[in-house]
């Protein structure tokens, strides 16, 4: 065990999954969602989990977040804290924009003025400085996701988990939010695990793209993405690698025919 810990320290591993399995139900009707998933995430890394429907990528994220329990193997995030963003912004309508961002701090007992100051600073970070006193419904979808990002950052967590956070947005907004997320990830030295089914999005954002198979979810490939940042989703390098990964994904989907 000591050996493992030493290695963790040296390589800064913050998430370690070893042969993780997740089953729903028991007996003959049990569904194996994840099968022997092993992967690691290092501090400051941007890791994208990519897969077709039924690959259990969202399940995997829920397991890391502690929202669900593993059925086998080991999952170790130490005493690190996680925050999470979902496809819906899921802002609370009874709170103002600033109130939503302050909520995680309120739960930790941060004082009122300190809360407000930090919320203002976080809203500036997501370029919503002038919207602190608005209500969530007064904002557009992309703006709401940025508030959700500010709220997630307000948790001061070690790991940011993102479950298809831009899936419901139009292409233009998504493109701009990729730039924003990349900027904030670099400025704040975040560790991100990002789930998506969009291959280009994964290559655009990730340091690594982990490709999962479907039913059950297994790691089939772990692609390093070495293109210089800031990247563009339509650059030849991103498109080229996305095409390569798409081919692999198609093979995987075809396996389920018949």
């Amino acid at each position, binding site marked *: 065990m000591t050996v493992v810990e030493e290695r963790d320290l040296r390589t800064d591993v913050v998430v370690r999954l070893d042969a993780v399995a997740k089953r729903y139900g028991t007996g003959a009707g049990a569904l194996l969602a994840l099968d022997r998933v092993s992967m690691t995430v290092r501090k400051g890394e941007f890791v994208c989990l990519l897969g077709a429907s039924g690959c259990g990528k969202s399940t995997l994220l829920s397991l890391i977040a502690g929202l669900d329990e593993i059925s086998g193997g080991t999952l170790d995030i130490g005493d690190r804290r996680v925050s999470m963003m979902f496809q819906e912004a*899921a802002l609370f309508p009874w709170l103002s924009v600033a109130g939503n961002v302050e909520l995680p701090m309120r739960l930790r007992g941060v004082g009122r003025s300190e809360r407000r100051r930090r919320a203002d600073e976080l809203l500036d970070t997501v370029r919503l400085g002038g919207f602190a006193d608005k209500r969530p419904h007064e904002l557009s979808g992309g703006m709401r996701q940025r508030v959700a990002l500010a709220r997630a950052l307000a948790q001061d967590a070690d790991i940011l988990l993102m479950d298809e956070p831009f899936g419901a947005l139009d292409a233009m907004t998504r493109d701009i939010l990729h730039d924003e997320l990349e900027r904030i990830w670099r400025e704040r030295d975040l560790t991100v695990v990002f789930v998506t089914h969009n291959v280009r999005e994964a290559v655009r954002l990730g340091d690594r793209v982990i490709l999962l198979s479907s039913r059950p979810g297994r790691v089939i490939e772990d692609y390093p993405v070495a293109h210089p940042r800031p990247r563009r989703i339509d650059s030849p390098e991103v498109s080229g690698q996305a095409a390569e990964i798409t081919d692999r994904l198609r093979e995987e989907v075809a396996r389920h025919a018949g």
Partner: protein
Amino acid sequence: MPADVKVPDAAADRVTGLDSLELGGSGGTSQLGRRVWRSTWPKLLAIAIALLVWQLVAVSGWKPSWVLPGPGPVFHDLGDLVTTADFWDGVRLTLIRAVSGFALAVLIGTVIGAAVASFAPLRAAIGSLITGLQTMPSIMWFPLAILLFQLGEKAILFVVVIGAAPSVANGLISGIDYVPRTWLRVGQVMGMRGIAKYRYLVLPASLPSFVSGLKQGWAFAWRSLMAGELLVIVPGAVSIGVRMQNARDLSDSGLVISYIIVVLVLGIVIDMLFKAADGALRKRWGLT
């Protein structure tokens, strides 16, 4: 490196530019006077039609005029009525009964609703009973209430509370049940547990449903109270119901109809208050 300095600015412009495009120019608010008129004239028209029909029936000779007077004499009676201090004492008494009964119903309904929503065995035991109680016509409770509490304020209070509390409880229960799953997950990731989860998430999230429960509860309380005031006559307490009964005993149709109008107007006014509260909440939440 000038190019490097320029990049963040361009990015910021793109973001704020897109924001302002997406928010768009919201349509200018129309004038207040116009809005008020637009929502008022259908109501005025409805009142005019009702009065016209009433007048036509009255002059048709279907019933003698001392049994069914037309709007003219009734409004004359009503005008006389509302200028007496005695009448306002009756209104005050009735409203105090209504508000205190309703308040007690809210208290009891909230406690029961919260308990049922949080403990599964309790829900299995009395969840459907609460819905059953809601369908009970409250007048059915009076014989029992009179046996339990005699002809007194408590009998009326009992029926008002038993009529209104189930709606309040049900409003809270469905509010708690239908807190969106994603909100609960967000709360869980934020580390909300136990009381904090209720205080910061579940209770505020169930507010709209709770408010419609209150609104419905009030309607039941008001109906139960009116039935109670006609059936349970407490010596010395000259409420609206008692006055109406007295008018009937004196065969004073004009006065009976006047009291009907009074009860109708009170009901409408209070309903408007609930609507305003509900509307303000929906607007704040962006539900409209």
